């Protein structure tokens, strides 16, 4: 989220406009419920252990005991989807935030500075764009393997938490770095293009002639106008990042078996779609509904905070 100070009245306006937007409010409630469900429900006794196999009931259909059926090892699908949601939501949030901040700042500076600085920064983006992603990821996962193990050990030691509950989340740390390192490239290019357009606009020229510092022009006057781009990019990037996670867990980075994420569940379901369609349908449903809600909320936020719509 970009922060900029224009007095509290704008924020109050924004909140009011947001609350008037039914789709956005509904989405916000849905997302909150989903988060609560994913993080708290698996702790309840009536939800099965997501990793408990039951070879007597493989790929079973929906029943009272297993509301979404079971998977190919007889594990409760609902529990797996909920636990997978924890990982996917976390990845979506953290990795997106990392790439958002990087992309925004990089693009702003590049577009605003122009000239040689811009050329240098954009050619660096070109290099990163063309670097083979898998190679980077493999090198990365190998180099970070040991530190990550140490981190897990330290956390288990200091907090006294059970290893099984900590390890799935800590194994995501390299993933955040990997996605964060490359996920921001498209956004940086988009932000740069728009910054270049904005900086020749009248209000920036005015701010400059008033003697404002570059920093304040960039972050107070140009950045707020990029909100639309950022929102749109986020709704595009989050599903991409959550799915990238699933491809990466197949080469040992990201979520470790037997834990799941929405991406890995959908991938497993897609391979068996003619045999056990429920393995594809339920994870996809959770995934798509969450992203749809995120999309509506993003649009609502954008409409609410947009400085131009304040004139309405």
């Amino acid at each position, binding site marked *: 989220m970009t922060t900029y100070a224009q007095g509290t009245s704008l924020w109050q306006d924004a909140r009011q406009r947001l609350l008037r937007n039914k789709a956005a409010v509904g989405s916000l409630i849905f997302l909150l419920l989903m988060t609560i469900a994913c993080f708290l429900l698996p702790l309840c006794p009536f939800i099965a252990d997501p990793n408990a196999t039951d070879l007597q009931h493989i790929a079973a259909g929906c029943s009272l005991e297993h509301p979404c059926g079971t998977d190919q*090892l007889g594990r409760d699908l609902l529990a797996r989807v909920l636990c997978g949601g924890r990982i996917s939501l976390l990845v979506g949030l953290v990795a997106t935030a990392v790439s958002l901040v990087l992309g925004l700042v990089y693009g702003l500076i590049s577009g605003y500075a122009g000239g040689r600085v811009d050329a240098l920064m954009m050619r660096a983006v070109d290099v990163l764009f063309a670097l083979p992603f898998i190679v980077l990821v493999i090198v990365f996962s190998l180099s970070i393997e040991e530190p990550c193990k140490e981190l897990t050990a330290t956390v288990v030691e200091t907090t006294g938490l059970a290893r099984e509950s900590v390890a799935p989340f800590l194994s995501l740390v390299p993933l955040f770095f990997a996605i964060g390192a490359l996920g921001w490239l498209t956004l940086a290019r988009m932000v740069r293009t728009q910054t270049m357009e904005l900086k020749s606009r009248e209000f920036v020229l005015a701010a400059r002639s008033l003697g404002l510092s570059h920093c304040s022009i960039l972050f107070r006057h140009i950045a707020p106008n990029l909100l639309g781009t950022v929102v749109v990019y986020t709704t595009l990037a989050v599903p991409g990042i959550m799915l990238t996670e699933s491809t990466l867990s197949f080469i040992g980075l990201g979520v470790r078996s037997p834990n799941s994420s929405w991406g890995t569940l959908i991938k497993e379901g897609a391979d068996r779609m003619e045999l056990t369609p429920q393995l594809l349908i339920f994870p996809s449903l959770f995934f798509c509904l969450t992203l749809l809600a995120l999309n509506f909320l993003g649009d609502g936020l954008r409409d609410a905070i947009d400085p131009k719509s304040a004139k309405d």
Partner: protein
Amino acid sequence: MLSRLAAWCVSLALGLVVGGCGDSRSSVERATEQGILIVGNGQEPVSLDPHKATAVADGKIITALLEGLVRPDPKDDTGVLPGMAESWERNEDATVWTFRLCEARWSDGRPVTAQDFTYAFRRMLHPSFGGKYAEMLYPLKNAERFNKGECPWEEVGVQTPDAHTLVLTMGGPMPHLLPLLLHFTWCPLPAHHVEAMGGMLDRRSLWMKPENWVGNGAYVLAQHEYNNFLEVRANPLYHRAAQVRNKGVRFLPTVNGYTETRMFFDGKLHITNNVPPEMAAWAAQKAPTEFCNDAYYSTVFYRLNTARPPLNDPRVRRALSLALDREALVRDVVRGVGSPSFAFTPPVSGYAPVVPGWSHGTQEQHLAEARRLLAEAGFPDGRGFPVLELMTTSRDVQRILAECVQAMWKQNLGINVDIRANEWTAYKAAQRSGQYDISASNWSGDYPDPATFVELWRTGGGNNCTAWGDADCDAALSAAAACADPDERLQHLRRAEAVMTEAQPVIPLYHSRRTYLKHRDVSGWFPLMLDNHPFDAIGIRSPHHD
């Protein structure tokens, strides 16, 4: 490239216009009409030069293109039929084999001579060529020394008294030599042609490209589009050309078993390479007469790194092995596409499975024994047992199997293992350098003889990778290698395997089976343990010609 693109665009446009109203028959129907067999080959071949090839997919194609001294029996892969050699004899201790070659010609019309065999063997073993599968020829006397540059070629046990006689001198008794000769590494090469295309040691030689191909097999290489298909056509100069039952074979590099199975039902393939376990029941129900489930000379097992504690304790290894319910694994996870076993070497004629004494009894007894052993090793109820890492490849079946094993160990012994999925080369590298705790592995035999499995466990062997070794095992293996009597030789191998399974440096899980689909019009295809089908014996019955 531009012209290809232009041609492609034009044909696409035409295709779109003509669309389905042109030829509405499926690929298989059209191929059947032409007498061409379409076969799923699992992957893109690495090379068609028998001295650079190693993959199973390469072997299947090379077998169609080149014929060795003997050729495979379409009904039984422990038997051999005369190939380039019309007859052979051996001396009493099976150290010298004499082959009499038949009158055969290369596809360019030149005769096949004994010198073509020596040329091929020399090229494969040449120290400055780097033949990848050179080890397959090591049974020849001094072959290994020549390969390592320690002796001249003249000392290697290959002689050609005349153009149609080949005498092979072995390093030791080789009563089981004949099935070994089926392997593509023993094929001859057209010496005159390889020489003309750049010479014996020219690694960049293009003699095996479709436009340059010269071979002596039932087929000649017709067309190869990288990652798309490879087609071989019947060789009119083949010495048994009249007996070839089809006009050609098209191999597709079908990597994804799910896609391949769907393609079969869409009429794209006569024979598929692999139906994934989870699709097996569905495919069997959908096409009961076309679904095949054959035994395969291969074992799925877990390597244990015996250099790392606590896996250096045989009691721990035995406990880990006993705690796995193989019946359940095979029934529910692999879906019956395998036979559960405590033995490493799959059964083959004359060699019954070797299982350790402690593996008899019921699953309950196994569990009780496993818990007892673990407690004895200092980890009662799994307390204090370190978290081991179970390394797998990213293949789907492997991963699910690992998840099930992980759950069983946790449930039955109270120990935790982490699963680490590695991409293929990183997995291999970690395994070969001993950078793992437990590694999900499999091994397929190159020839129908238990030695191809048991030899793995020689101390310091290249594919051992478990850091385990035992003098008794090595002694038994050496005794087997020096033994001329076939039955006695198998006894030595059994002894070696018994030592190995007792120590349990690996946990055998099951012997694999192959599940695939075979079109109802295909005839002459029999279940073979090594999957080494001679394609010339396979017929395609066109429904229109009945």
